[in-house]
């Protein structure tokens, strides 16, 4: 039962330069980024992007600098205009919208959180949080009530009358998130929202986001260059390189089956034991003797600790109360090593 994706990008191209539409044909014929720059003086931003973002999910677009991820997210609300392609939100082509229609889209359907917070420095925290509603024309009282509610939710109760310059980075980003939440939109765009924060605060914010998502089930598109963050947050992971999608899919799946040497390199450094979950390594239930039960979402590290390093053990995998599979410690240990060993095993 495939439902209509909330946001859909089809055949999206972006070339930076004066004659972008003219040189597009070269890119479609296969010209690469370096060649395009050298011969035509144009920069290739995005190449043939085809991504579907489902409602209620967190889609993480990940890549290194220059991969085009910031460019991509800005196409969704047309802060940047594409050279070619379709951008569909709730089935409607964003490209076909008039000025007024586009403003309506930005006010009602999408909100955004920025890497450098982008708060209005001359307004209080409360006014900043209520900004989206004020733009829509709601009266002051309504804006303030809603804004106070969300500020409290992100843990900033009591700071309503402060100015952004008086807050720390983490607190400012909470205001940014409160602002986006107050807008009450279905879709939230987050452009490297936590990259400017220190690691401990970053973890807090990631947990806050996951918590909010449990409640609100928004469609979140999240940009980052941090793989750990991506793996923690993503329901659907899209990896970009030089403006093209290298691989996209379920994060655990990408980890287990990288399709490209680039991605293999990328994921080689992570702590697989901590990141990989039971669900990725489990086998179908065959009913042998079990040493115990494990939750489907538990990570392998906790299981290694529990098993005490004994690779002969088997565990039954539970999703809530239902038994859904079994896990052999041998498989677990094999999964700890990147793909090359798994091909050897096959």
């Amino acid at each position, binding site marked *: 039962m495939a439902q209509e994706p909330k946001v859909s990008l089809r055949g999206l191209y972006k070339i930076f330069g004066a004659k972008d539409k003219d040189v597009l044909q070269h890119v479609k014929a296969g010209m690469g980024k370096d060649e395009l720059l050298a011969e035509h003086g144009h920069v290739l931003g995005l190449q043939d992007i085809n991504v579907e973002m489902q409602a209620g999910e967190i889609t993480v677009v990940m890549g290194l600098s220059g991969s085009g991820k910031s460019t991509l997210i800005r196409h969704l609300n047309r*802060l940047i205009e594409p050279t070619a392609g379709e951008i569909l939100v709730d089935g409607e082509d964003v490209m076909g919208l008039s000025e007024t229609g586009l403003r309506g889209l930005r006010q009602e359907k999408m909100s955004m959180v*920025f890497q*450098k917070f982008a708060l*209005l*420095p001359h307004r209080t925290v409360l006014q900043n949080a209520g900004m989206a509603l004020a733009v829509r024309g709601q009266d002051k009282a309504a804006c303030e009530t809603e804004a106070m509610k969300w500020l409290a939710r992100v843990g900033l109760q009591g700071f309503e009358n402060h*100015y952004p310059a008086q807050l720390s980075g983490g607190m400012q980003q909470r205001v940014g998130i409160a602002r986006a939440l107050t807008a009450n939109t279905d879709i939230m765009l987050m452009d490297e929202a936590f990259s400017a924060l220190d690691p401990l605060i970053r973890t807090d914010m990631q947990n806050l986001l996951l918590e909010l998502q449990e409640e609100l089930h928004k469609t979140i598109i999240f940009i980052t260059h941090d793989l750990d963050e991506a793996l923690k947050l993503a329901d659907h992971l899209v990896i970009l390189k030089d403006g093209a999608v290298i691989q996209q899919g379920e994060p655990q799946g990408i980890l287990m089956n990288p399709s490209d040497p680039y991605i293999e390199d990328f994921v080689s450094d992570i702590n697989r034991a901590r990141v990989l979950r039971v669900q990725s390594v489990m086998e179908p239930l065959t009913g042998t003797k079990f040493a115990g039960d494990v939750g489907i979402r538990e990570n392998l590290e906790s299981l290694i600790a529990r098993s005490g390093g004994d690779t002969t053990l088997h565990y039954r995998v539970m999703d809530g109360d239902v038994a859904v599979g079994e896990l052999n410690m041998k498989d677990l240990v094999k999964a700890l090593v990147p793909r090359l060993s798994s091909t050897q095993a096959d």
Partner: protein
Amino acid sequence: MAFYDGLFSVLGLTEWCKGGDSAAPMSMADLLAKSSGKETSGPLFPFPSLDNLSESCSSIIQSRDVTKGIENGFLAAKPGLKAVLDPITQPLSWLLDGALWTFAAVPWFIMVPILVAIAWYASRSVGVTVFVAFSIFLLGLVDHYDVAMQTLSIIFVCTGISVMLGVPIGIAMSKSDRLQRVLVPVLDLLQTLPTFVYLIPLIFLFSVTESKLYGIAIILYAIVPVVRLTDLGIRLVDQDVIEAANAFGMNSRQKLVGVELPLALPNIMAGINQTIMMSLAMVVIASLVSAPGLGVNVLRGIRNLELGVGIVAGIGIVLLAVILDRVSKAALSRVDMTRVKH
């Protein structure tokens, strides 16, 4: 034999050249030549200017014909220009005359407290307010109260109009690169073209007895900083904040009023401050075209070598400048929310 004779005969233009009107006045060099009986020895290779060329070929106009032509062109355009410009600029005359009358008619014991109150309200600073009161009393003490009030009223009106016209122009400039490219040379022109160059022709358009003549002189010079700095201030607004405003669906008006102007305000206030200073700088030139006030005293002092008169009036202008500068700067720092202290 002039230097360029050869050139014209080579080009075959000798016949055409003869047809020209060669009634150029005799130059001093020619007279000297005639007197000493020697050939005029000019430079070895004279620049191919109109005057030098017309020596060889009288059909070529001289530079003086160019200047005469410009003059005639202006006089020909005058009736049309006057019909358009006179009514548009009439309100300026009314405002100036009205302000001069008001500042003169209101007695000092009402006027001075009002001015001090304005200073307090704008700056909320005890130091500035005391300084303002002290300066006004000082000027009054040396019987310069009347002329100081005249100058002050002129400055108020001209600065007010400069700001009211200049800020919108600056906003328009900041939104359009093309407009900026057109206006920047115009602004450069206004700041550097010697005022008398365009003022004297203006007397042909408006009667010199109208106060709008010196009003225009001051405004054209003083409006430039506020235009430039409004343009700059808006262009320099943090682009991240603008992006956020766009992302949340603000329209142009909401962006301008809610984001751009408040964040550009420090620069705009700096522009207003400079506009006030430049208006004061123009006080003496304005008096050359019949503006009343401290400038008249300065000119009198210069003409009669009454050094004391000139210096006292000059110091009066400086005092007014300092008062207005301090008050406007204090008002700025109050309004600038981005520099809230913590």
